[in-house]
């Protein structure tokens, strides 16, 4: 049985459609990454699946139940790492983890859990003194504490340093290996490529494409760019047959080293950006195929994600000392 089944899901705010007849099935044990720019309807969709938001149309089944009629037993089977949750700032990490253990039938052992998110050294530090990234890790710890069957991970690595991200990836990989179904929303496409089995791109409330991560983008990923340099001149050839291009290149220069030779396949990020751009141009369905060839020289290897990643909202201090 699929973990999540969505059919013709619709949500409107003040007459504006933010989720537009969305269909999606996520199998049990799968890690699914939902990508999309801010305001695309990602969080709204996820919050409907979590049972925190009502819907205006369609059917939704999560772990065999309609989340709009969630009960405690159902809720105990899902884990939520949201961007909007806080924890009492006056608690230490260990105190918070110990406390929330009481909410679960069989919580993960406190020390093990703190270790898994890399907060062992901070176990006795008050949450108020943690960095944004460390708080994010605590959020993750509290989200998986109850050994959920289905885990919603909403931008889990936003605000983490590279080491923290890798640590978190390891944890997610381990959860997957244990059979946890994961719905990941993220701005980081390398994260989606690394962790997910399938990827879905959402924009303006519509799913543009859903595909296995390795096939995401369809024709968009067929294109490749062969690039090399002769002296100060950089050559770039966009092609569907890079091997032939290289073979010819080598034939032309049988003895010399070809400087800076590389074959670049479109990354998940390239594909995603093209999909979103096509959607913005209003022809999401057939605008893509040729764009891979038409556009040259925009690969920009190390670009940031398309939109500025949001920092996790810092929980405001609850207690203030008198100034």
């Amino acid at each position, binding site marked *: 049985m699929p973990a999540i089944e969505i059919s013709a899901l619709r949500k409107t705010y003040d007459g504006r459609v933010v989720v537009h007849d969305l269909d999606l099935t996520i199998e049990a044990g799968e890690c699914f990454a939902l990508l999309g720019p801010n305001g695309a309807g990602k969080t709204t969709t996820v919050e409907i699946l979590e049972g925190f938001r009502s819907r205006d149309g369609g059917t939704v089944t999560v772990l065999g139940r309609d989340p709009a009629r969630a009960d405690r*037993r159902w809720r105990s089977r899902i884990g939520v790492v949201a961007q*909007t949750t806080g924890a009492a700032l006056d608690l230490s990490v260990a105190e918070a983890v110990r406390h929330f253990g009481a909410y679960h039938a069989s919580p993960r052992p406190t020390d093990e859990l703190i270790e898994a998110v890399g907060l062992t050294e901070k176990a006795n530090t008050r949450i108020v003194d943690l960095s944004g990234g460390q708080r994010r890790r605590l959020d993750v710890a509290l989200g998986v504490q109850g*050994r959920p069957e289905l885990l919603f991970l909403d931008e889990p690595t936003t605000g983490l340093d590279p080491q923290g991200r890798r640590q978190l990836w390891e944890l997610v990989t381990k959860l997957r290996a244990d059979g946890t179904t994961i719905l990941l929303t993220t701005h980081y496409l390398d994260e989606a490529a690394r962790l997910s089995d399938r990827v879905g791109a959402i924009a303006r409330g519509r799913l543009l494409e859903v595909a296995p991560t390795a096939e995401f983008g369809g024709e968009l990923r067929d294109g490749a760019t062969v690039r090399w340099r002769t002296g100060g001149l950089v050559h770039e050839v966009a092609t569907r047959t890079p091997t032939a291009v290289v073979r010819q290149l080598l034939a032309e220069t049988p003895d010399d080293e070809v400087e800076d030779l590389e074959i670049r396949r479109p990354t998940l990020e390239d594909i995603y950006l093209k999909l979103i751009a096509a959607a913005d141009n209003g022809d999401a369905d057939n605008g893509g195929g040729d764009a891979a060839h038409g556009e040259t020289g925009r690969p920009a290897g190390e670009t940031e994600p398309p939109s500025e990643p949001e920092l996790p909202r810092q929980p405001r201090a609850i207690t203030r000392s008198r100034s």
Partner: protein
Amino acid sequence: MTTATEPVTVRGPVTAPPSAARIARARAALELRLYVRARQAMVFSFLYPIIMLVIFGSISIDDTVAGDVTYVQYFTAGIAATGIILNTFQQLGIRIANERDAGELARLQALGTPAISYLAGKAAQVLVTTASQLAILVVVARYAFDVPFPVDAAHWMTFVWVALLGTLAGTVLGFAVSLLPKSAKNADTVIVPIALVLQFFSGVFFVYSDLPGWMQTIASVFPLKWLTQGMRSVFLPDAAASAEVAGGWEHGRTVLVLAAWIVVGIAVCARSFRWRRVS
């Protein structure tokens, strides 16, 4: 190895989640711990009545007011009632608004926390801290300002039921008032003035029977006036009852008014309690 043959599908919480009572106990312990660590709550709700008693008691120790009792005796009753309202209504209202704004309540919701467990945790914290506060207050009043203890078991009983009813009313109204501020930023500015103005209108700092009629009328709608009057019936001699505006302690009416507010508070919470900020 054995791991290869073990069924991998059996995982996750196969047993029912912990009972609401168990989570309530965990919450009560947590709330008390957080209360003690929160300096604002300590100063503005726990210590405030005690500090006020010391200040006002020291200023006007020999004054006699209506009913032929000392001002400090009259004030002890009023500030005991105020302590209950501050520790419940004000402290809870601000704190819950803050917890909602910071997403702490959203986490509780995500964890499937029964609302009743959350409420019970708060109620337990409020009961323990209010009882401690009243105990300290009574002892300070007795030994620093010669305000006698309640004279007999009947007066002690009155003390207990007035305090309990006031705590209950203040607690549910604290939950209700936490819904008022749009965000935590203005929780203080919305909630504190309500509690402050009521202190002046309800016979805490000034003798109630000396207040202008319109103030008395407004105050008599709200719980604090009835709490102060109930506390006067505990700490003042029975003869002072004739100096009350109504000529008596009005215990029956006190119960009715406080009970009505408890019903109102529960109704508001049941209808509109939110785990999340309005977005």
